[in-house]
């Protein structure tokens, strides 16, 4: 066990525990706050796995923007502040399918990778990743920008009933 292994195991335990709390807590707002812990732990995992830029983008976009949007959604839909008992459907089908998917994928990964050991590559700093992004991946990058524009227009049309789909 190296330092990286220990760090990955610890951060992974934090991510899994808080992720479990996200899907089981009975407070809507607390689910959002536990999501922050999960996403932060995953950003730490990216850092250990030498993906520096991805880690900081994760902190900026997920922990910063996405969680704020989700909390906005919680407030705008007037979610109950205290604990509420009607947040879940019957649990056993979800437990069955979720555990099946998780353990099945875990088994596949274990069969594929066993307990082999690899060295970590050079860190993916902004300079290196930016070079790749604008040399090899320019076309997908531009496509993503068009898609963001489409999502923006779609969100505006959806949220304005006077220009949206009139029956």
């Amino acid at each position, binding site marked *: 066990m190296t330092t990286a292994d220990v760090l990955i195991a610890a951060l*992974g335990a934090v991510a899994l525990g808080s*992720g479990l709390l996200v*899907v089981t807590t009975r407070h809507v707002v607390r689910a959002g706050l536990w999501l922050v812990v999960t996403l932060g732990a995953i950003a730490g995992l*990216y850092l250990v796995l030498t993906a520096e830029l*991805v880690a900081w983008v994760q902190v900026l976009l997920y922990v910063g923007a996405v969680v704020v949007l989700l909390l906005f*959604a919680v407030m705008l*839909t007037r979610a109950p502040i205290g604990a509420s008992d009607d947040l879940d459907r019957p649990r056993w089908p979800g437990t069955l399918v*979720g555990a099946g998917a998780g353990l099945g994928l875990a088994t596949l990964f274990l069969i594929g*990778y066993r307990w082999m050991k690899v060295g970590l590559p050079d860190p993916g700093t902004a300079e290196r990743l930016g070079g790749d992004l604008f040399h090899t991946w320019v076309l997908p990058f531009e496509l*993503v920008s068009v898609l963001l524009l489409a999502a923006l227009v779609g969100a505006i049309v959806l949220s304005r009933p006077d220009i949206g789909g009139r029956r």
Partner: protein
Amino acid sequence: MHPALPFLIAALLFGIGVYGVLVRRNAVLLLMAVELMLNAVNLVFVTADSTVKAAVPRSGQVFALFVIVLAAAEIGVGLAIILQLYRLRRSVAVDEVPLSDSSESEKSPVS
């Protein structure tokens, strides 16, 4: 380092996300569970990128960046849909949404 460790974490996180999507009734909590699944996929991308020798270096990290951007767009549109649902029905419980439009007796949305 052992690549099996982060892969295991990602697989279990994906399972947690699947459980959340299937069990939660509140549409906002559903979106949070979807975020968990997307993060598990991103973790697989980044781990594979830094442990497998690839033909194009760092392509996994670039794809993780793309997935993060797509998740941001998805949250924007999803939030708009949820707010419209709330405006129409005063509730965001996903199992109360009628699946057919035929028996439409609702009044038109108030602006």
